């Protein structure tokens, strides 16, 4: 379902913009160094089968988020093969498509369409989404009036109700208060049990061990280990100490 072969990803290593004087004075240097790049991922290969739940661990800057962006399709590989079949639903930055001046209800529709539904499909599900989010009494108010927790609840509800085929999760199991956290954790587990392919980036080794059937450990843009969760997490913690 997900096939990654020798994936490389670079970003331009440019410094932040210079002043005009520096720009003119260093023009030849800038032109010479313009192709300097930073390699965020260096030759990654793996396959994920349908229904797998794969955890990705690693230190900050190891390339986890870059990998997730490429899996989602919002970033492109510099080199290598990325072949992904199925509808991808991100649980990355919840509510990225929300507009503060629109009501919760309007944002459900927009976000639902952005996440891959037709308007009709999302209208049908909206009652269910609102019920799950538990913020029915505020649903017709602009989301700028929402508390952070309410905002996250709504965004999470939309995302899990869009029938994902591939779920990409980045450290979001902390949505809302503890009651909603339990609820959201269960919703994700239910999706996974129903055969949704999941890629899960987290620093919480407990969450990784309890959910994932396989773990990939990234370090400096390369795969350091790939296999059984208990094993890989063990190695990772061992080395980190």
């Amino acid at each position, binding site marked *: 379902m997900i096939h990654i072969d020798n994936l490389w990803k670079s970003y331009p290593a440019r410094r932040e913009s210079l002043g005009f004087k520096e720009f003119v004075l260093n023009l030849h240097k800038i032109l010479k160094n313009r192709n300097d790049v930073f390699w965020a991922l260096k030759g990654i290969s793996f396959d994920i089968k349908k229904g797998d739940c794969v955890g990705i661990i690693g230190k900050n800057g190891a390339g986890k988020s870059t990998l997730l962006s490429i899996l989602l399709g919002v970033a492109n590989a510099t080199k290598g093969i990325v072949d992904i079949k199925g509808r991808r639903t991100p649980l990355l930055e919840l509510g*990225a498509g929300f507009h503060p001046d629109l009501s919760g209800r309007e944002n459900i529709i927009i976000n639902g369409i*952005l996440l891959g539904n037709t308007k009709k499909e999302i209208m049908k599900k909206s009652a269910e989404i609102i019920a799950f989010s538990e913020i029915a009494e505020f649903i017709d108010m602009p989301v700028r009036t929402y508390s952070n927790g309410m905002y996250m609840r709504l965004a999470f509800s939309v995302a899990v109700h869009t029938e994902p085929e591939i779920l990409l999760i980045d450290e979001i199991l902390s949505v809302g208060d503890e009651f909603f956290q339990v609820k959201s954790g269960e919703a994700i587990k239910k999706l996974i049990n129903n055969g949704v392919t999941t890629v899960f980036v987290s620093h919480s080794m407990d969450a990784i061990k309890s959910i994932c059937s396989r773990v990939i450990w990234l370090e400096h843009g390369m795969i350091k280990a790939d296999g059984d969760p208990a094993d890989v997490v063990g190695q990772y913690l061992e080395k980190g100490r």
Partner: protein
Amino acid sequence: MNRDIQRYWDLFLILVEKEITLKYKRTYIGFVWSLLNPIFTAIIYFLAFSVFMRFKMDNYALFLLSALFPWNWFSASVLMSVNTLTGNTGLIKKVIFPKHFLVLSLISGQLITMLFAIPVLAAILIYGKGMPGIQWLYGIPILIIIQFMIVSGISMAIAMVNAFFRDLEYITGVVMNMLFWVTPIIYPLSSIPEKFRIILSLNPMMYVIQSWRDLIMTNTINWQYIGISAASAIIFFLAGLFIFEKLSFKLDEVI
């Protein structure tokens, strides 16, 4: 496949809807502003040029506005498009969807504003003892399609290039100001000496704006101008789309 088309269409419509509703979301009279704006613009220009400064031209207000309203659609769309990609990084980095829609929905939202100006133009025409002709029925849609293609070509290109080269935002402002003066908006084409007219004739917006004016003021359609505009519309649209597609591959690295 069919579902994908439906989904993209829904996405486009909802973005346009968002564009329109958000504009007046926190105002009291809301959408009425869309009609009030052109009316007030018309009144101001009418007072300025037909009451205080009397130009030696019949109905100068209509002359000016018949070109100014379409121009405003063009210029507002282009100037606002510059930031559609750089201003929506959250969306672009986290959600997969056709990014052209951000630009196209913005232009469509501006088109609605322009549509509200047409009845105002008709009213001034009738006030000046004129009458909108049957030509409006097909002339206006033709011109809208042509202008939409030119605007979207330019807007897609600059929105994308601006992500890589942020100075473009300011360059665009200067260039639009310049273009305003080499397009016959506040002056008639005939007032330009023959030898300079070649410069104006290189400006594709000249043909479009002149066609709007001919249609609104005299119910005439200059098919030669329409032909030139249509040809440049196709070129601009394809070129803009090409630039957008080419660069969008690297967009995630710079925003």
